[in-house]
């Protein structure tokens, strides 16, 4: 089972490490990362495997949102299934 973590906000040092570190803490394996910085705005999309995640999805999402608050960025966590459903027929 995979989750998609989206991080959007003003670019600051350590965002990627912060989010990835939180994933590692809960055994969520980062599979793929795409990121871009445009006019100081940071957009990162991270695909993580949560099959072996040690905490319930809700707690993972909440802890990642807390990390987002620390860095002043918006973090959105959702099951991969949402995007598959919306964009694949």
């Amino acid at each position, binding site marked *: 089972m995979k989750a998609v973590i989206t991080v959007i906000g003003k670019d600051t040092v350590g965002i990627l490490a912060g989010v990835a570190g939180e994933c590692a803490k809960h055994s969520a394996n980062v599979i793929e990362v795409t990121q871009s910085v445009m006019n100081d705005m940071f957009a990162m*999309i991270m695909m993580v495997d949560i099959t072996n995640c040690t905490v319930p999805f809700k707690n993972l*999402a909440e802890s990642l949102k807390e990390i987002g608050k620390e860095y002043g960025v918006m973090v959105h966590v*959702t099951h991969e299934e949402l*995007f598959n459903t*919306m964009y694949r027929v």
Partner: protein
Amino acid sequence: MINTNDILETINMIQNENFDVRTITMGISLLDCIDDNIDKACTKIYDKICRYAGDLVKTGEDISVDYGIPIIHKRISVTPIAMVASACQAQKTVKFAKALDRAAKEVGVNFIGGYTALCHKGFSAGDYALIESIPEALATTERVCSSVNIGSTKAGINMDAVAKMGRTILETAKLTADRDCIGAAKLVVFCNAPEDNPFMAGAFHGTGEPDCVINVGVSGPGVVRAALAKAPDCDITEVANIVKKTAFKITRVGQLVAQEASKRLCVPFGIVDLSLAPTPAIGDSVARILEEMGLETCGAHGTTACLALLNDAVKKGGVMASSHVGGLSGAFIPVTEDEGMISAAEKGCLTLTKLEAMTAVCSVGLDMINIPGDTTAEIISGIIADEAAIGMVNSKTTAVRLIPAIGKKAGEYLNFGGLLGGGPVMEVNTSSPAKFINRGGRIPAPIQSLKN
């Protein structure tokens, strides 16, 4: 990997364009709760609702977290109470409303629909008793919603019921006059009422439905408007295409949520209702979509055409996205719940006559319209009869949810708060239809061929 732009588009829809799933509604049959002792029946109803819907709110919240999609309401619809009440003649029908209200509070849903009578061809004892009790029921409960079906394409229009509902709406508003007449905002009069509608105030659990079912209502006017705003100069064919594509995406999410809720609650999935349901929030308005298509203000000439296109394109886009589509499915035009409609009504551009024309092509009818408090019951009945006639002849659902603003005149305001919103009192044609309404009887069912 999934396309980056698709992910960012979805996040943008949720964060900035008010994208949400409007409601997960659990339909529960109460036919097995019928008892000739009303207190026993009420206990059975309360127990069954609490047993079936105990986990509904929590499950909705869990799904919302897992998919990152707001699910605004968790609600319940039940078998039309008039059927249950038929067994308890000459007892206080309002007890059923109080039992429903208690159950709704216990399981944590904000509305429960089904204080309903289906009397399109005539009244049973239960129908009559229930309609008589509606004003008191809506004044003394908080979460109960009521609806009455007074006509259908196959049965015609029950004009006795039309006359009775005019008086009932007025009485309901009077009994809640101290709370901005909010009772009337929870009462809908239908023609061709659907049995699987998840949206309030008109939701009830039809007799053809299973014992328990999950129906989901999607929304997303803000998403559609934003998609159209990105293509300001395209022709109308492309406008329809954009609406279809957006409706497809919105509905897919509704389908996903419905399937997931069905699985987690071990309750069969019923339908997804593909509706554009506005809220008073800025950017969540159906009127603004019509204006994005090129109208200066909603209500201008051309509004009916734009709404027809929108309503049709939403259905076309949504139908392929869901395995079962039902309910009302289309664009809602509730005036006080739609920021753009409120604004257009304040300007005097959107009038009751224009709204009536719009209801011939939208998914429901004259919805959440404040009318002057001195409007007579016969005039309200006249409005209901007109609206029901549009539904009956065009084989579509139409409805009337009017709020007589007791003690107020056109131009003054009613404010309900929350998603019910608020807005100006609109002018009504005061010429009397009293003789027509008081004749009673039935308008015969219309012919279904020789269509011109």
